[in-house]
């Protein structure tokens, strides 16, 4: 009676991402070509004790708003399997 979900948190457009920039530079130094830019985010794999998809989505939305994302600078995306 569980279901799995994935929450992806990314920086909003326009928010400077120094870590992404550093990774971008490192890829260039490895001669990996064709990479225009890199933005770093976070992935949370969550197991829920429900099989109700809309219930799962509302729990995760609450989790994102209260903790997983700082909505001043970050967007989140919820995918329920």
């Amino acid at each position, binding site marked *: 009676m569980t279901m799995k979900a994935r929450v992806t948190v990314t920086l909003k457009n326009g*928010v400077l991402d*120094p870590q992404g920039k*550093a990774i971008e530079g490192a890829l260039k130094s490895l001669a990996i070509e064709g990479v225009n830019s890199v933005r770093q985010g976070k992935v949370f794999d969550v197991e829920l004790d429900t099989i109700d998809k809309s219930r799962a989505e509302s729990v995760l939305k609450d989790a994102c708003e209260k*903790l997983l994302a700082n909505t*001043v600078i970050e967007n989140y995306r919820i995918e329920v399997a």
Partner: protein
Amino acid sequence: MKAAVLLFPGLNREGDVVRALRQAGADASIVWHADHELPAGTDLVVVPGGFSYGDYLRCGAIAARANIMDAVRKHAAGGGLVLGICNGFQILCESGLLPGVLMRNRDLKFVCKMQHLRVERNDTVFSHRYGKGQIIKVCIAHGEGNYVADQPTVERLEGEGLVAFRYTDADGNIGGAANPNGSINDIAGIYSANRRVLGMMPHPEDLIDQLVGGTDGRGLFESLAQFEKIAA
């Protein structure tokens, strides 16, 4: 002046904050994060620096959701004084007591050094023992001190005089290499709209003894110890 210094797992600056408050004549005690209430008669809550919860998720994010923070929000809503230093500033931003967020430093380095600041105004409970525009030498030690807020918020902070301190060089010059972390408008600390909540990245509590490099941090704690001089 009765001060409550909060302690979360991973903070490490609480002892120095208590020492600085007591040196200035304040009564200071440490309050554990899992408590639900502040001690009766608390005038000031200090959230000190360190690495609460190992900086997991985002700096200050987990501490900002601790039990005691509901009491701190209530205290602030009633006009009570709150000071957040370094990780404490990050916790105040994450808890919604101050706007904006502290991002990774511009150069991705943890910066640990002496740092000069300009005192932007000296008519607040936190700053009345300084001169207006005075350049003080304190220190910084952070990896995520790059203050960011959206444009309307920055305009409001500037327009309402809510920038408390700006980074400068030793001569008081602002900008360029004087800004250690890329903070917008060289912001080192900000006030809430009523100027009763202050968040700052630098550590005034480290500069209270000539033995360790200076005493410019004392002014902030002496201001707080005599907070009644500034009308609420």
